[in-house]
């Protein structure tokens, strides 16, 4: 297993008291697997990703990346907020991770190509505050790609994109994933996105339980809502709905 989370529990201080956020979570992703996590707002998906990439330590349990305990830097991570450094241009933001790895020069060409791919090469020298929300999100996504890591954790990478751009990004992402053979764990609210991209979908219930759904559709998958895809989306929807809304809180 390239990524593994065993019996992980985690609590956070809220108003002076520790409140359990995650209880006894088990999760894993095989090499080259694409896993999505879905679940209601506030159930702890983002927290899970932070734990997964080693930014926080679990209270209990173990997290392994490529059979090593997860430490920051072992995997690529795209946070939910775009977190572009406001004093850096788009290009310099993209080259942040290469800089950290002392590969700034080598990666510049790649960064330019990626920027071109998402249609933002005109903004290479712009500052983040000169971009729209969706543009910023695309930059943050490219920045994560440029970490060049085997395992990527993505927190709602396409949430701020319009349907068209999103669809384009999905197709590109699928191609990229196949080509580079990365292991990807993706948090999303878009059921269609999760079905289109992943091998396996994890539903994180507000109760703290997790549920797995395999996506056994052939690749490359249809971009429109084919009957199989629609069916799966409906299944997922019913899975989430089976707990009443109020029970989250």
């Amino acid at each position: 297993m390239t990524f593994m989370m065993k019996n992980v529990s985690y609590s956070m201080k809220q108003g002076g008291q520790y409140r359990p956020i995650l209880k006894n979570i088990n999760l894993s992703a095989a090499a080259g697997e694409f896993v999505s996590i879905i679940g209601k707002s506030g159930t702890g998906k983002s927290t899970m990703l932070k734990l997964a990439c080693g930014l926080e330590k679990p209270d209990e349990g173990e997290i392994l990346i490529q059979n090593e305990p997860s430490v920051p830097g072992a995997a690529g991570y795209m946070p939910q907020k775009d977190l572009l450094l406001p004093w850096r241009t788009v290009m310099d933001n993209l080259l942040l991770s290469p800089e950290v790895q002392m590969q700034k020069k080598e990666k510049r060409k790649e960064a330019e190509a990626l920027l071109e791919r998402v249609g933002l090469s005109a903004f290479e020298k712009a500052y983040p505050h000169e971009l729209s929300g969706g543009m910023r999100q695309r930059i943050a996504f490219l920045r994560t790609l440029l970490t060049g890591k085997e395992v990527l954790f993505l927190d709602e990478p396409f949430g701020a994109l319009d349907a068209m751009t999103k669809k384009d990004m999905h197709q590109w992402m699928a191609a990229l994933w196949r080509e580079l053979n990365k292991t990807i764990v993706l948090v999303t609210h878009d059921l269609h996105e999760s079905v289109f991209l992943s091998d396996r979908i994890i539903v994180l219930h507000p109760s703290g339980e997790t549920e797995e759904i395999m996506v056994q559709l052939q690749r490359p998958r249809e971009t429109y809502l084919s009957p199989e895809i629609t069916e799966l989306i409906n299944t997922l929807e019913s899975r989430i709905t089976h707990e009443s809304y109020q029970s989250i809180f």
Partner: protein
Amino acid sequence: MNRIKAFFKDYYLFLMAAILLLGAWEWLVDTGRLPSFILPAPSGILLSLFENKDILLFHAWATFKETILGFVIAAVAGVSLAVAMFFFKSLQRTIYPGVLISQTIPIIALSPIFVLWFGYSIWSKVAVTVLIAFFPIVVSTYDGLNHHDRDYVDLLRSMGARRWQIFKKVQMPMALPSFFSGIKLAAVFSVVGATIGEWLGASEGLGYYSRRMSGSLNAEGVFSAIFLLSLLGMCFFGAAALAEKRMFRWKEIRKDVQHEKVDKTQ
């Protein structure tokens, strides 16, 4: 030409206020309401300035050297200390109280020690300058570093950045505004420091000159030196403010846009 125009547009209010004030001051002294041996008239100061311009320039150069040397050392030392304290909490606990103590000690009381260690060379003045200027830099830089945004740090950590890289790429840029506040203060204080340093013993510099003039009861002389000291202080402050402005140019671009447009509504 345009720059001069812009300057006048920006500062005409100050210039007007200054002229008014100078006028009032001149009047107060000329009519004997303010004794000229305590506060001489602007005209007298100006005259003394012109009459002694060569000597004053010589002394100003000496003070300038001390100030710039002291300022640079204070900036380097202050930033290094702040950074070191930021990296090593234990260092902060060991040294911060000492830094505080160093500020509350009246320098005049320390003058014998300065003389003992540095003699009457330029270094005694530089030492006083450093002592005075580095405190605001330490406090501002340290505070600035501590007020960074944790989310950005996490982002860098996720990239496997070392502490030093996180510092360079996130914490340092975020500390800049606060750092520049400190630098601007220090720029002004370093002139004061050099002046005091010269009082502790010197044979050149504007502080020395002003004390000498005071000793010969030449108030015009004292104030012409003070005038130059003020000018020096303002130049240093201005330079620091300019450096700050350059640093935040990326922000300015945006402000410009918005101000231009917003101002119309207000």
